[in-house]
């Protein structure tokens, strides 16, 4: 995983933030998904996944985000994505129908503001 992508983590009270830097594909998506899940505790109210520095994302990563969103909903936690406008990643998420299904923001600040 470390070769293609890394996760930069941050904790803001009950909100976990994970920025995925690098490329997400079938080879590292499982490990990344597990990493994101470890960020959530019973106290967590939300997870923000920041894709600003994600340089590659295909259906492998998108499926993982969908699954993660489902799990969080079941636990009454929220998943929010950070995706800057007019980026290839936003285009991929749009084609896959993820926009609308999961709340997205253009910046981390916007995501935090929406959660507070």
């Amino acid at each position: 995983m470390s070769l293609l992508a890394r996760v930069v983590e941050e904790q803001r009270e009950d909100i976990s933030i994970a920025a995925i830097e690098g490329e997400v594909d079938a080879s590292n998506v499982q490990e990344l998904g597990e990493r994101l899940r470890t960020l959530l505790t019973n106290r967590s109210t939300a997870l923000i996944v920041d894709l600003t520095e994600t340089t590659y994302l295909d259906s492998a990563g998108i499926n993982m985000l969908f699954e993660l969103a489902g799990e969080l909903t079941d636990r009454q936690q929220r998943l929010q994505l950070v995706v800057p406008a007019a980026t290839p990643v936003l285009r991929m998420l749009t084609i896959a129908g993820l926009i609308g299904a999961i709340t997205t923001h253009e910046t981390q600040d916007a995501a935090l503001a929406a959660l507070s």
Partner: protein
Amino acid sequence: MIADMPNLPAPGDSPDVADGDRLQALERITDAALASLSAEQLLRELLLRITEILSSDTAAILLLDEESKLLHARAAKGIEEEVEQGVKIPVGRGFAGRIAAQRRAVFIEDVDHADILNPILREKGIRSLLGVPLLVEDRVLGVLHIGSLVPRRFTGEEAALLQLAADRAAIAIEHATLYEQRQLAEQLQRRLLPTDLGFATGMQLASRYLPASHESLGGDWYDAFVGGNGKVVIAIGDVVGHGIPAAAVMAQLRTALRAYAVEGHAPGEVLELVNRLMTGIGPRAMTTLAFALIDTERTSLELVVAGHPPPLMISPAGEPSFLEVAAGMPLGVSELARYEAQTFAFEPGAMVLLYTDGLVENRTEPIDAGLERLRALAAGGGGVEALCSKLVARLVPSERHDDVAMLAARIEPVPERLSGSWPAERGVLAGVRQLLRRWLETRGATADEIYDIVVACQEACANAVEHAYRPGQHSFELDATYDGGRVRVTVRDQGRWRPQRGTHRGRGVMMMRGLMDSVDIEHTDEGTTVVLERMLGAEAA
């Protein structure tokens, strides 16, 4: 109380050893059969025979560690505790230390009134001691001593016999030590060099490592791996020193370099971090290094050099030139050393060669002449293997005083038609992406077009990987053509796509359809073929 041997009766005067016995004793010590024993066995056997011949109660061999100047107890009889407790005696001090420092026999008649460092000798109740140096060509390898539990005056003859045994032991130790060290260093070194140079998609790598002919190996080392951000790292270094100590430094260098490079640090930063680490390890960790980070997509190379000869670049037309880069200090010299990387174009079809000084240095001419000879020889076409073979054949003598190592890298030229076969493993996907990006770039695709087409192709490749579910080796093929503005990519596998389960079924196919003008998926008994098409310069369908 303490006597050097000249004060002892001369050999032959002694009534203690009869002529016949002496002859037999000599034979037992010079016995050719001893040569077939390992070093450990030989030392044990010699000590046993010595104690028998000279009727001594104890015997011990201590070997000198050149670096620490300490004598280490290596074999003992009657005072096995010496070895078990790892007794270490500084040269010049105590009984054994004095023998090593003065390079001559020392006799102690009464241990109680002598300068003895090792308490075990007293604790065992040894009263008298006789010791001789282990010498090879005037070098002290260690000390052999015998002891008596009752007060005893050793004779000159006994001292001579002991010296004979010591000479015998010294030669055997010397041979065995050199052999064992070389074996060890070679084994260690082999594990430190990369075994797989075929890992980088779109690149060719070749290497050679030729150890020095005699005695111990030098400290040459190289590595090639995928660093952070998927770029390829190639590095070569020359650790000061040789043999096992050099290999140990090499192992640390390799680990540090890989760790920092994989973290994604910039090349100059990688060297500064490694340098700080090596400086902390100690003065023996000095090493030269050439480090290059290759970006196959942008076809560039970031180079940083620490006291190492300049890498050679050979243009696609076969013209060689040295990469002019301001070299920093060797690693491990100063914590304050700074390293700056320089970026060079690394065109497809060009080659870069990293090497160690053994390739360009010999003892009879200045290094400039060697560099020029290398440059001249590297001219001309051919791949990385051919280049390495030619350089070894023309520049490396069969008898050499130094190691020679080289590592050559080439970015494969982007072909008109991209075609290849890969094992059906997830790990290959990133490499295929890089290759596709480069190919699409040369076809004039925009960044967005490249992203879309790459994702669509990856969906097809990922499906091929996911569905390689039958046992055995599986592979998939990718074929990309460009004609009249139209990109056409065919991905073929031998698997059958299983009906997908769960809520995410078919998202990959959905992505392909969303990103390409046309998607054609055909399942047959032989496997699955996906044909993807997209016009460049137009909006996606």
